[in-house]
């Protein structure tokens, strides 16, 4: 089992979600996040005072998948989230020791 984590541009969420549904992914978790990468931050002006904001709004997606499905899920995310411009985000994959479905107590792949 693997955990696919993706930090993406917020407006890409819908497309990515639809692509993952098409692949038969059973669930995902989304959180609003702030971050910076090579894309720079920006400045804001309040009452004549300038503020530098190093972090830009992102969404962070987490998807639990079987080993067999990892590549197509990662490919789907990258394909749908890419705009070709700086700040598109990143996707990374982590190994997962175990997964338990809280309601039933099922473990492992069954719980995904």
């Amino acid at each position: 089992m693997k955990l696919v984590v993706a930090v993406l541009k917020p407006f890409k969420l819908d497309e990515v979600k639809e692509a993952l549904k098409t692949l038969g992914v059973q669930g995902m978790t989304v959180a609003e996040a702030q971050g910076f990468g090579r894309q720079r931050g920006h400045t804001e002006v309040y009452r004549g005072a300038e503020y530098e904001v190093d972090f830009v709004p992102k969404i962070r997606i987490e998807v639990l998948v079987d080993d067999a499905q990892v590549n197509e899920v990662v490919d789907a995310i990258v394909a749908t989230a890419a705009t070709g411009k700086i700040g598109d985000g990143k996707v990374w994959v982590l190994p997962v020791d175990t997964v338990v479905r809280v309601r039933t107590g099922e473990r492992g792949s069954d719980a995904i």
Partner: protein
Amino acid sequence: MAWWGSQDALTDERGALAVLAAAAHAVPYPSWLNTGDNTWQVTAATFVGLMSLPGLAVLYASIVPKKWAVNVLAMMFAGFSLVLIAWVLWSYKMGFGSTSIGGGVHNGVQTQLSNVGWVKHFFENLVGKPGQVLNSVNEQGQAVSAANTAVPFHFPTDSLLYFQFVFAAITPLLFLGSVLGRIKFSAWCLLVPLWSTFVYGVDAFLLWGGGYFAQEGSVDFSGGYVIHMSAGVSGFVAAWVLGPRLLRDRRNALPNNLVMAAVGAGILWLGWNGFNGGDPYYAGADMAAAVVNTNLATACGLMVWVAMDAWLSKERKPTFLGAVNGMICGLVGITPCAGFVNGWGAIAVGAICSAVVWICWNFLSKVRPFSKVDDALGVIYTHGIAGFFGGMLVGIFGDPNTLELGCGNLNASGQVINTTQQQYITAHGGCTPFGINGLMYTGSAHQLWEQFRAALWVIFWSALVTFILMKLIGLVLGGARYSDAILEVGDLAIHGEEAFPEETLAQRIGVGSMAGDPESTSLASGEPDRAPPGAEGEH
């Protein structure tokens, strides 16, 4: 009743009609009362009240950092309450009472119109005799005040009292913007009624209540001096005595909610229709002119600031909070002029005040003493400087044909008869129309001079008394500002509340016997403790 009724019934019917006819001639209020004037006065007052609560409260609470929002709201609501209590107990009569200490004004009449020497004239027309307005005669009797000597008031004392209260209330709330983020809640609760008594009461009587400056010819339509300039200067002095906010709070003064700031600012703008529209004291022609002039100046002030932000600022961006600043400059600038200038004058006043304040905001703020005093929201600029310039501009743009009070004609039985515009503008009978002779229309700088004298006084008096009061309060409370440890935390340390509590992170402790508490309810009804209905069955 049926037409075929008996003779007796017909007689009854005639009797009933006679009673009805008599009732139609009786009115449930005294003959001096005019329902239109009275209705507008209290409506306008309510508009002005809404400018404070929630208008200014929400605006200020939204443009301070999140950790200070509750503190601002608490001080706003407490300040509003404290001014009203002082107002009915003693201070209304200081500002608008019919008789001054020294007797220069007596029963609503200015008794010293002949030359009595300026010292005697000044001190006997300085402030009204304090007193309560709480009994029925005081509350419902016809308003009598030298605030208006041309035509008797058409409403009771309470209409004037409430209208003037909401002005008295908003003034300290305005300069809360200078001192927030470090002043003790207790210091604020002492400062507001004292300031209202000794600064506002005196200035209001001098310029509005028929006191010295009113008699000399200085005008302030709705408070460019008495309210805004006074608030700006007092806030600045109080901020200087208090010392600055924490360095971190000054460096990171991020607003917490621009949408709510828009709600507060919008209420402020439209509430100003009552602020300036109520000051002719009659629901007449000048009321409408003052309302339109107010909105016109505001629109110009707003757009001038936005344009200067977009073209002249370092960032070259049309900011929304800049627009709010420009809006306030327009509103404040037109306040002393609203019913004295025409539409062209209103455009000029709004544009000039906004441009001047924009320049001061961006450049004067880097010069001593402005650079050394932490006026948190810049009240000295948007209220102090805008109020000063607005008050001076009356002397330039005051249009002699824009009448605060014209003269309608009355027939022998006291009813209004046909009056032409020309008759309204020119004097008729015992009435003298009231308009301002501005420099632009008459070539005379006399009004400008009168405005300048009054401005100097208001600046001097506001600064002096605020300084003394802040020092006294500091002595009484062992310092008027919170310790740095409390300032680091803000709302939570002072009030035990935060503006945006997180439901999922908070858990109730020490559940007691408060009303509405589910546990105490179940105890009272003798039921055993159990989960609320619906909690079972979904395992």
